[in-house]
């Protein structure tokens, strides 16, 4: 065992697992948790589809059905789609930029625990028949105190609080890690595409999430202490909710989608054995998408009777976002046409599936963005079709591509190619059978969120078909789970770089050691492992007696100083438990804000307070900035 092994190792057993601040262990947990929520939310969908397979069906009554679709949407959006992308980023980004951990390791742990407890709360209240019932976007006045009595909507609003805080924490991690902890020589123009995508996503999270946090807080206070934000009788406004929610809600779907774009920009070039075409264009496209996405939200409100001039503006913006999205697609196709012929394997199959499915979703998105067309299509099954085409085609398919691609790196074992193909084809065919008919159902007048419909409506046939497709999708997920379990038990071992890919994450063992790299490489290219003499140099002299990382400069990735990272600790878990008590307490009483803050304060102090032992170890290796300046050491010194 080297010094690095000792310093970075977690304590064995349960305590070590609970106290770990290793970004990889936390990320794996995070990913697995989101997949459990994904499976649960998917099961809810299967129940809904079973109910809708026949006209006038009585398998599920309106009360349960309304909870089912509200939980399905809320769990998929808040407990799966955003968190899984962040979790994958929290695993990969430190490896991709060549550092040993994220910028704030304990905060990382805290973010995961908070997310977990929020998710547990949601499914628990659902199991107790007090789950949210007003849809994943919870419009007022339906979700307000008068029309949604009880605590159901309050639990929904707190689900928001839990997951948005966790997402904001993840976003700050990613920004600071990408900005300040890149390996020497990795200027921003050499940053991997996935890291760019996550950087852009993190900024979107920072600016979008506060809106829904404030909105959900206003909803809670309207319900709990009689504020009047959304009550027209007392100067409030029902559309205020919609504006505040969708100002977050539209960027939210790009928060889910942009990471997937980053994944494709990693996987596709690796399979085409070619550097991605149009790196600069792709980065500019990502940034444009992020900016534009904040200017579209009113397209969710086209039928509320807004002034026509406003609607025209949002139509143009909604349609024009197809332009940077299109640029991405053109660059990828150019990468394929100018690269080596692709060797088909599960990851690239899912990428190809993305093209087939997402482009349809993008087209229907342009239709929905046109305010005139939207007058017919809004709130019908056409929208249900569209949103699943873009979310599943545009995010879940790339995610599954990513799972199959990075699984060997994460676990050291290669997923079965045979099961992967079954997974892909069942998913691809099942998805289209399930969701394509819904375009037609929407045009045939079927509204969203109906627990049943009459035989006379003529909607039964297509609904039955959709249900069959849904079960196929369910089967494909089962195949995936089997693949993962069997592979973990006895799959083939993977080497460092099974795909022959160029990124830094492939320059270390599979799975990586706790400290990621034995030696931090110096980077001189966008595709480091495809360069002839990689690495040109490695970093030496990082203290190893405590966890340390190299902090580099934002604009030129030159070494700046060494950051001493905190050791593993149980405080983040305790703080998350205290926060959970605070959040759940405020569902029942506003006073919880006061007494609930006390344990939170105590645990945060415990977390932050340095131990004498750690202080001593830090002082042993301490080099003060003034001393370093006096010795005129600005950068590290290259030596042959």
């Amino acid at each position, binding site marked *: 065992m080297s010094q690095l092994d000792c310093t970075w190792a977690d304590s064995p057993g349960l305590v070590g697992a609970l106290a770990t601040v290793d970004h990889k262990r936390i990320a794996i947990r995070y990913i697995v948790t989101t997949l459990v929520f994904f499976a649960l939310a998917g099961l809810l969908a299967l129940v809904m589809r079973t109910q809708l397979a026949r006209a006038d069906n009585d398998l599920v009554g309106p009360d349960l059905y309304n909870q089912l679709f509200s939980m399905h949407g809320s769990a998929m959006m808040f407990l799966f789609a955003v968190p899984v992308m962040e979790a994958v980023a929290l695993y990969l980004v430190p490896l991709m930029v060549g550092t040993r951990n994220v910028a704030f390791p304990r905060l990382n742990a805290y973010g995961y625990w908070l997310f977990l407890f929020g998710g547990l709360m949601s499914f628990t209240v659902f199991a107790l028949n007090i789950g949210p019932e007003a849809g994943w976007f919870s419009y007022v006045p339906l979700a307000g105190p008068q029309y949604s009595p009880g605590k159901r909507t309050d639990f929904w609003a707190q689900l928001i609080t839990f997951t948005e805080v966790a997402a904001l924490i993840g976003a700050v991690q990613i920004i600071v890690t990408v900005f300040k902890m890149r390996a020497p020589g990795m200027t921003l123009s050499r940053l991997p595409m996935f890291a760019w995508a996550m950087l852009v996503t993190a900024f979107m999270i920072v600016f979008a999430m506060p809106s829904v946090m404030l909105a959900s807080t206003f909803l809670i206070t309207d319900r709990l202490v009689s504020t009047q934000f959304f009550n027209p009788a007392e100067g409030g406004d029902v559309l205020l909710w919609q504006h505040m929610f969708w100002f977050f809600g539209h960027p939210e779907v790009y928060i889910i989608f942009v990471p997937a774009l980053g994944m494709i920009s990693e996987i596709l070039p690796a399979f085409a054995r070619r550097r991605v075409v149009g790196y600069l264009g792709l980065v500019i496209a990502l940034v444009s998408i992020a900016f534009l996405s904040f200017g579209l939200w009113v397209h969710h409100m086209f*039928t509320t*009777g807004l002034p026509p001039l406003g609607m025209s503006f949002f139509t143009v913006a909604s349609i024009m976002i197809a332009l940077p999205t299109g640029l991405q697609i053109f660059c990828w196709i150019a990468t394929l046409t100018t690269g080596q012929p692709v060797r088909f394997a599960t990851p690239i199959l899912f990428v190809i599936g993305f093209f087939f499915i997402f482009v349809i979703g993008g087209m229907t998105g342009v239709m929905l963005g046109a305010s*005139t067309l939207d007058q*017919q299509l809004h709130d*019908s099954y056409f929208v249900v079709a569209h949103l699943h085409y873009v979310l599943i085609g545009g995010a879940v398919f790339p995610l599954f591509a990513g799972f199959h691609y990075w699984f060997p790196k994460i676990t050291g074992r290669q997923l079965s190619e045979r099961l992967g193909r079954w997974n892909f084809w069942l998913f691809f065919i099942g998805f289209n059978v399930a969701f394509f008919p819904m375009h037609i159902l929407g*045009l*045939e007048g079927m*509204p969203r969120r109906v627990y049943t419909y009459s035989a006379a409506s003529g909607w039964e046939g297509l609904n039955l078909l959709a249900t069959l497709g849904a079960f196929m999708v369910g089967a494909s997920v089962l195949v995936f789970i089997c693949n993962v379990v069997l592979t973990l038990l006895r799959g083939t071992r993977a080497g460092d770089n099974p795909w022959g890919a160029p990124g830094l994450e492939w320059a270390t063992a599979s799975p990586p050691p706790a400290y990621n790299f034995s030696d931090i490489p110096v980077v001189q290219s966008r595709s480091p492992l495809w360069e002839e003499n990689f690495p040109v140099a490695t970093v030496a002299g990082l203290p190893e007696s405590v966890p340390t990382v190299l902090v580099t400069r934002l604009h030129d990735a030159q070494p700046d100083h060494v950051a001493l990272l905190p050791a593993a600790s149980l405080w983040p878990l305790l703080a998350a438990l205290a926060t959970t008590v605070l959040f759940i307490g405020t569902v029942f009483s506003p006073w919880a804000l006061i007494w609930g803050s006390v344990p939170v304060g105590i645990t945060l102090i415990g977390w932050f307070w340095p131990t004498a032992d750690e202080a001593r170890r830090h002082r042993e290796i301490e080099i003060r900035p003034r001393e370093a300046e006096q010795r005129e050491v600005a950068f590290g010194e290259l030596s042959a």
Partner: protein
Amino acid sequence: MNHTALAPGGPFAERIVDLFWLFGVVAGVVYLIVIGFLVYGLRRRPAGTEPVMAPVSATTLRAIGVALGVTGIVLVGLAFSDFLGNRALAHVPPDALRIRVTAHQWWWEIEYQDPLVTRRVMTANQLTLPTGRPVVLELGSRDVIHSFWVPSLQGKKDLLPGYTTTLALLATRAGDYTGECAEFCGFQHAHMSLDVAAVPPDEFARWLDVQRAAAAEPETDLQRRGREVFLTSSCRACHAVQGTIAAARLGPDLTHVGSRPRIAAGTLPNNSTNMAAWIANPQAFKPGARMPASPLASDDLGALSAYLGSLQ
């Protein structure tokens, strides 16, 4: 049931479906082109061993530029066609028939407007429209947000508490159409349908005269007994029948309920058996509906149903 956006019964829906086909054809062509290039990129060809490190050729970059430019032009064209469509839909001639629609959980209150209050017509869950004459709906809600949607005639419009929105309708093809509530509004959002009948103008005038008249006098003993039951039990607390002392507005107006094709906002076809079953236990058909069960003896129930059926 006629509730498809693809078979329009009037110019507004026609305009929208034309736009849909334009977008759809463009989408189809673009999709085939993109997939075509994708397949071309995946085609089998001799492979090298090393990754391609050469910079991308100027031709390829130009091709991407052209694709981007063409995409931009197409998108601008589509946006412009939508803008034109918007303008066309916004134009409503001044002599429109005005109808006030108020949404409730879970039924539609309909009031045909007139400068003279006594000539106004109150009905529920049903619209009869004259063909060829524009109609303007003034939309509002008593409780939560709903959305009025008759796909064969027009796009939809939300009904919001605290606001009045408007929607123009124009039926040029006579026929029966169906509408739905298109904004999730609680338990029985799925059972908030309305029946729209587009009829020639003279037939419409006749219909309006009949609707303006007070409730028909019962002709048989059974119907008389039914009116007795109606006026002495809890029905009066929520429902009005013009010409009797029942004048409450909490539930749908029943003055001409016998002439409606369906009852309970489209939950059941309108016949005497269904009417009796509905009154006896609304929760069996529409759980969560605001109407309580009626503890009536079965022959009273039959009489009541006969009376209501006679209110044509």
